[in-house]
């Protein structure tokens, strides 16, 4: 009896989500101890308990505000995928297009998005559009980079194999190139979705009267640090959940991928 319960406990402790959770709890304890030990005033760093209180009082407001942020994130992310993947295909498919487009894309990455975000407000007004664009601008680059890498990493022998069968462009794309690039594309999508959260918040910082970014801005202005920390926690949660959803889709879309292949091996 006792041994089975110990074993169950051991299995729970060993499961992949317990470890980061344990670390998180440790960090929160450390945070609490630090705040108490050095008597840090709550207008600089609130204690964890203050943040929990803020959740209790302003929970409904925070949850309501996270809806537009999440929607903007998903919108920007989907746009990143819809534009980034075909763009990666074009760049990987043609040296000419690559030589024109790639340097410009890299160059555009060094433009700080926070600096140009107000421009979108001027162009598109307050509301959803500037946030989605801001999320897209941050999210699209990793999709392009990893997509290009995925499409380009095809074994030359594999290309010759398809050609030796007289495969049409569409056949070799659907049967060989696209599936081959999928693991890299998904790696890019996972980075993209977390960056899209940042992009949406940046969009809300500069021109919005809704969303968690707006809450962050306002609570800092009013020295409501517990609320601000609560909003931060919520933002992190949104990022984690979206990342996890993309990860889940990956498992279904490309179950054969190396990072998922552990189960059974045959030798002969």
């Amino acid at each position, binding site marked *: 009896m006792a041994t089975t319960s110990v074993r169950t406990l051991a299995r729970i402790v060993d499961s992949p989500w317990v470890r980061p959770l344990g670390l998180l709890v440790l960090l929160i304890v450390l945070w609490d101890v630090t705040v108490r030990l050095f008597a840090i005033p709550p207008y600089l760093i609130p204690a964890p308990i203050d943040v929990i209180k803020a959740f209790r009082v302003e929970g409904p407001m925070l949850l309501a505000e996270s809806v537009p942020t999440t929607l903007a994130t998903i919108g920007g992310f989907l746009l990143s995928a819809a534009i980034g993947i075909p763009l990666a295909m074009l760049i990987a498919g043609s040296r000419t297009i690559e030589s024109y487009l790639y340097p410009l894309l890299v160059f555009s990455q060094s433009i700080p998005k926070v600096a140009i975000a107000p421009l979108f407000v001027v162009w598109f007004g307050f509301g959803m559009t500037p946030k989605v664009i801001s999320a897209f601008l941050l999210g699209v680059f990793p999709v392009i980079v990893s997509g290009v890498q995925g499409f380009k990493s095809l074994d030359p*022998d594999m290309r*010759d194999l*398809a050609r*030796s069968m*007289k495969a049409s462009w569409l056949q070799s794309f659907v049967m060989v190139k696209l*599936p081959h690039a999928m693991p890299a594309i998904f790696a890019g999508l996972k980075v993209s979705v977390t960056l899209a959260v940042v992009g949406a918040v940046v969009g809300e910082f500069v021109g919005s009267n809704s969303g968690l970014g707006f809450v962050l801005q306002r609570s800092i202005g009013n020295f409501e640090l517990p609320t601000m920390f609560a909003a931060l926690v919520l933002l992190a949660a949104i990022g984690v959940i979206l990342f996890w959803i993309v990860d889940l889709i990956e498992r279904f879309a490309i179950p054969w991928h*190396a990072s998922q292949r552990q189960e059974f091996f*045959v030798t*002969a």
Partner: protein
Amino acid sequence: MSLSLRMVNAMDEPKARRRLIEVRGLEKTYRTRDGDVPSLKPIDLDIHDGEFVAVVGPSGCGKSTLLKLVAGLIPPTAGAILIEGKAVTEPPDDVGIVFQSPVLLAWRSVLRNVMMPVEVRRLDRASHLERARKLLKTAGLEGFENKYPWQLSGGMQQRTAICRALVHDPKIVLMDEPFGALDALTRERMNLELQRIHQETRKTILLITHSIPEAVFLADRVVVMSERPGTIAAIYDVELPRPRSLEDMGNPVFSALTQTIRGHFYARGHLD
């Protein structure tokens, strides 16, 4: 088992000596940004129907280039390749290729990998599915049809690749160092396997290898190439009766021939 494989009976023997592949004054120079890379000097070679020809040569001498030219994957700089009298200008239908790495699609099961040429060429599915299963069975892969390539050993993967090259029943099979990545024991087994396939199907096989014993063991003729830009240094007939067994490697004819071929490389450098 041999229902779907092309068998040769005594009646076909005279016809089997007919020239199937003719290589005429074939030259290849790769044009790169750093200048021209001459890879093949004029080559002339005839390969008969049902013949097993092995090509050995130092690395970089243009063996793969020769194979790609025959496969219609790259255009020649000069000269021509004729298959059944027709110039090769695009990948011919009657050819199957095996590369050094198995190049299997990781997202397809073994059976669906073997069926890939059938899908791409839009051949009749039902009859070829039966053929694919038979090929896998004779290759000792029965029961592995629904496994994925990564669940197989290197030798099994390469056997799958060979089945894929044979599935549309091509007259010609081109192989570019197909066993180069395998360990010595697996390699010997694959050699026996390949000999069996050749015996049973009478395919015309062009095998590129850097193993002289492998070439002599398998081939009717061994083509020896010189260093880059490659050309044919010599062609040897292998006068050993078939089927050959691994013990035949101790045969004086076998040792004498491998020794002679080896002499070509030690005269001016190494084989690999």
